[in-house]
Every structure is written in C-alpha cells, then in structure tokens.
C-alpha cells in the first residue's frame, strides 16, 4: 500500500510541476482593493518609480469600463529615464477587468524606477484599480493623486512549475538580502527531514 501511495503522490507531484500557467515575474505589491481613479476619453495617467523586472514580457493593470458592456481601449506605455520607451502597445482587455500589454522584446534589465502610463483611447471613461494611499504618486493632468495602481509583470510565455524553480532559487535569497544559499539550505534540510523520516519508518516496520 505505501508503494502504491508513493507512486500516486509522485504522479500528482509531477502533474503539478509540469503544469504550465502564467506566473508572476514582478509586482509593485499594491493590494487590489477598489477602483481608485477615473480616466476620461483621451486622458493619460502615469505611475512612476515602478519595479520592472528583467524577463518581463507582459505588464498587467486592472481596469473596468464605467459603462458596463463596453470594451475599454487603452494604450500602455512603459518607459525608463535611461532606457527610453521599453514598450508601447494597446492593452488587451478581458472580462475579469484586466488589461495586459505585451513587452516585446522582454525587459532586459531590472529597474526600480520605471514609469507605467495608461492612455484611454476609447469613447467612454474607464476606472483603474488599486489602493487609496497618501503615499501614492500617480500623475494625472499634472496633478499628483493619492492613489497607487496595482501593476503586475509576467514572462512572455506561461511557465511550468519545474521551470519556475530556476526563478525561485535567487528570490529566496533576495527576500532576506542574502545569497542563493538560502534556497539550497532549505531544500536540503527539508529533503533530509523527509528522507530520514521515511527511512526510519520503513526500518521500524521491517524490524
């Protein structure tokens, strides 16, 4: 029975790790709370000082048309003071209130001070979502607004869980401003714990 169970668990693990899906490449960690700003037709707003991660092939914001049933038309621009315009593309809207704009070619270098702008190219107003905060720095019509927009970055293509491991390894280190040892230490410790436990249980069962 344990062998069958082990095989089932391994197959389940393999299935989970092989599944390809969109995975975050970066985020400004702004909670998606509520629509925070309306954008009239022809208006553009910009959010500076954004984290833009290397390898990103798509940027996502959250937006909804103020008149239900219409499809917003937007132009998303990503730029950086030194790198210039990195991407300028129409935002692809989906029914879940998201706009995705492609970045082609993908971002080469991580920047912590990129600027993301959205222009409303449709006929009706739209509302962008994020957080109301006094630390916000969104600029609209020359005015600074006390809001932050949720901005997410994704790789160009969906990735499998296994492929994602390569991205995870350095992140575990960066999270504690340390080196890549962190991931390997944690992985070895966990695998050792599990290996010792299974070996001990099997040995006791055979006694």
């Amino acid at each position: 029975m344990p062998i069958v169970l082990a095989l089932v668990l391994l197959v389940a693990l393999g299935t989970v790790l092989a599944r390809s899906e969109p995975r975050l490449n970066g985020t400004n960690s702004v909670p998606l709370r509520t629509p925070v700003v309306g954008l009239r037709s022809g208006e553009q707003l910009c959010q500076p000082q954004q984290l833009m991660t290397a390898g990103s092939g798509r940027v996502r914001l959250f937006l909804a048309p103020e008149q239900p049933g219409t499809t917003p038309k937007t132009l998303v621009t990503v730029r950086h003071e030194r790198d210039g315009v990195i991407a300028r593309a129409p935002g692809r809207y989906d029914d879940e209130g998201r706009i995705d704009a492609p970045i082609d070619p993908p971002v080469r270098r991580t920047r912590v001070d990129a600027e993301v702008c959205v222009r409303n190219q449709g006929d009706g107003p739209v509302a962008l979502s994020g957080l109301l905060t006094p630390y916000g720095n969104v600029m609209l019509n020359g005015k600074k607004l006390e809001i932050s927009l949720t901005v997410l970055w994704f790789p160009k293509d969906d990735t499998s869980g296994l492929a994602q491991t390569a991205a995870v390894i350095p992140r575990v280190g960066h999270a504690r401003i340390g080196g890549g040892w962190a991931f390997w230490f944690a992985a070895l410790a966990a695998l050792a714990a599990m290996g010792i436990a299974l070996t001990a249980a099997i040995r006791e069962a055979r006694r």
Partner: protein
Amino acid sequence: MRAVWLCALVGFLNAAAWAVWTPPLQSPDEPVHVYYVQYLAETGKVPRPGPVKTKSEEEQVVEAGVHRTDIVGNFYGRPLWTPPEAQALRERLDSGLNPVGSGGDAGVGSYPPVYYAALVVPYKVVSALGGDPLDRLTAMRLGSALFAGLTVLFVTIFLRELLPRHRWAWVAGGLVCGLLPYFAFIAGSVNPDAGVAAAAAALFYFVARAFRTGLTPGVAAGLGLAAAAAALTKLSGIGLVPAAALAAVLLVLRPAPLERAAALRGMAIAAACAAVPVIVYLALGATVWDRPLLPSSGGVGPPGAKVELRPGQRSAQGYLTFVWQYGLPRLGFMFDWFRGWAPYDLWLSSWTGRFGWGDSGFKRWVVACAGVFVVVLLVAGGGALWSRRDRLRARLPEVLVYAALAGGLLLLLSWVGYGYRTTNGSTFEQGRYLFPLMALWGALVAVGLAGFGRRFGPVAAVTCVLLAVALDFGGLLIMMGRYYS
C-alpha cells in the same frame, strides 16, 4: 534511543527548512517577538506594559523594507525578488540605525522571558560575527527550530512510555509530529509557541515517566522544571500547571513502586523545582523590570471600541456555550461564537496547514482528507483502547492527568478567547495555541496505528509517515507559490 534522536532531528531539520523558506516577518506576530528578543539582547531588560509604540528604528526599516504590510493579506504582494531591491535595503540597513526599541508593550509587555532569552544567544552570536538584521532573524529562527526538535524529542519519548511494545507506532507518532508543516512553520519563525510546545511536551513525558517509576528525585525535578518552563515561556503555559500539581498529588496517594515517604520527598523536589524559577521571575519583575505578573487585558492588544453582543452573550451562560463550542457542535439554543464548527474549521483546518499571516493554506479537500485521517485513527485507537480497557482502567489516574493538562490549557485559552471575543468582536483562537498538546496529537497517531495490530500496523505506520511527508511537501509548495512565484 537512536530512533528518538532521528525523530528529533526530523523535527529540527523540517523547522529549519521552514525558517529559511518563510520570508522575513511573514509569520503571525513575528515582528513583536523579534522586538522582544532585540530589546532584551540590546538592553538586558524585558518590555513592559505601557506605551504601544515600541519597535527599534532598525526593525521598522526592516519591516518596511521587506514589504511586510504590503504582503499580508495581499494576493499580489511579494517579498524582495530582485538584486536592486535587496541592495537598496542593505544600504539603508548599513546607515547606522538604532537597534534599541522603546521597551513598550506591543502586546508582549507581560510575556515571560524564557523563550526570548534563549534566542538572545543566536542574536548575539550573529551580531558579533557582523551579521545584518536579517541574518540575525534567520539565526533566531534557527534557534527557534531547535525547540521544534526538542518538542519532537519529548513527544517521542512520551509515546515510548505509552506504547513501549509498539516501537513502530511511537516512532511513527514522533515522525508525524516532526513533519507537521504548520508546526514547522511556526517553530521555524520567532514565536514563543515553539518554546511552550517544547516545555509542555517535556511535561507530558515526565508525567508519563512518573507514573512508571514514581516520583524519583530525577523525574520529580524534571516534572517541576518542565511545569515552570511552560509557565515562564508563554502565559498559556500556566494552564498546564494545575495538572502537574494533580499528577504529583496522585503519585503521592498511589506512590507505588516507591514508598510514600519517597513519593513525598519527590513531591517536595518537584514543588521546589517549579517554584524557584517562578519566584526568581517574580522577584525580577517586581524589582528590576518593574512589571506585573499578568497582563491586565489578556496580553492580546488593545480592546476594540464597540462590539455588538446579543443579550446574555456576556454572561456565565455565554461563556459556557463558548467553551462548549471549542470541541462540540453548537446546539440550537446557543450563541454562534465561531465560524463553522471549531474542531474542524478552526483547529483541524489550521493544524493541517495555515501559513503566512493566516492568508494561505491548503484547500478544503485536503482538510477534509485530514479529517478522515483523524477519524480513522480515532476509530482504530478507540478500538485498541476498548479491547484493553482493563489495563486502561489501571492507568486511569495517568489518563486523568493528561485530560487535566489539556483541560487546563483549553480553559485558560477559552477564558482569554471569550474576553477577547466579547471585547474586540473577533476570534482570538489560533491553531498554534494548541501546540502544548502536541504530545496528545502524537498519542492519537501512535495509539491509532497500534490499533491496526502487529500485522497491519507497521504498514499503516509507513503509510502515515508518507502522508505526513506529502503534507509537508505540499505546504512548502504552497509557500513557494505564495511568496516566490
């Protein structure tokens, strides 16, 4: 004995893995516990009730720098992922920030110091080696992981006392405790629940040992010290002390295999070992630290403004219905204190695996499977106990003490939880508050496995450990998805 050490090693390694895997300060209340250790390490003093503003400048910079509040409860929040972000925080931390907090309450102003004092050692060692605040946090977490190893060690030898002839069962019981992802997650962060779990596991062991050997001087000293350690590690540990006293009294009334005089001497040793550390703590509190023994408001933060309660909800009847719902289904006439059924939706759900600040965990179907697993163990264990009821009857005083240990803890928790619920309007209880009962969780597993008999039991034990490995691995994958993917 080798198997016991292996179980303890599994507990430590697993908690150590979680300690490094969990992003900084992404564990319940970790910032205030870090504040306590840092204040104690830097000043030699403990925080005391008073102004709420507390943390050191250094810790505040760390908290903001690692995006703690941006991540908690925010599905799109992530820790530092990139070298430029990490470098920016490093430069900020290198700018000579003050590591001394203000010594105010922060919700831990009345907490006893044993656990925090133990973590001063890794804090100081890493400071001396030139580590930054995040290195110190990792070191403190690894120090805390040692408590996980200690807990599993005591749980395993407790189970060995319970089931000496079912080696595979007590080993599996210890291993399952060591692999519990929720326990590893909490014990792998800075949190006194790890410390009180170790002290309580030791207490369970010494109670079991005392009922085998009588109150010999060594066992009596262990019993007393474990009771004192529980009370001086976390306030909830006080709930275990009456049962420890009950054990000593019962062992004097039925002193075999010792003479009554020897048992009385043992009780005196146990009382002295329990009392001396507490008296020293009280004396320090009254003279050096100038702080009260107990918090005025349960030590759980400031009360909320207004809580709407139904008539009679704040009453003796209200409290009784509250306690009832800790373990039993709500009856029609009772107030609705908890969301869902507490044993399942509160206790089992979190013990199966709840991570971060409670904002990630296993899906409902996994909790349901864990529920089935518990029921199977209960049935198998219940059957085994029923078939050996004559022997169990002879051990009723011992069983009574285990029940009293659990009951004392639950009564104390319910008293604080009821006060919190009727004052703040929110639920106080969290699964980790039951870590002092880890020995009983291990007993459920071991006795349940023993119930499968000598033919099927060993296979069931391997299956059980394999499931525990899968749960632990699943927990690590959840953490990977939540914070790093």
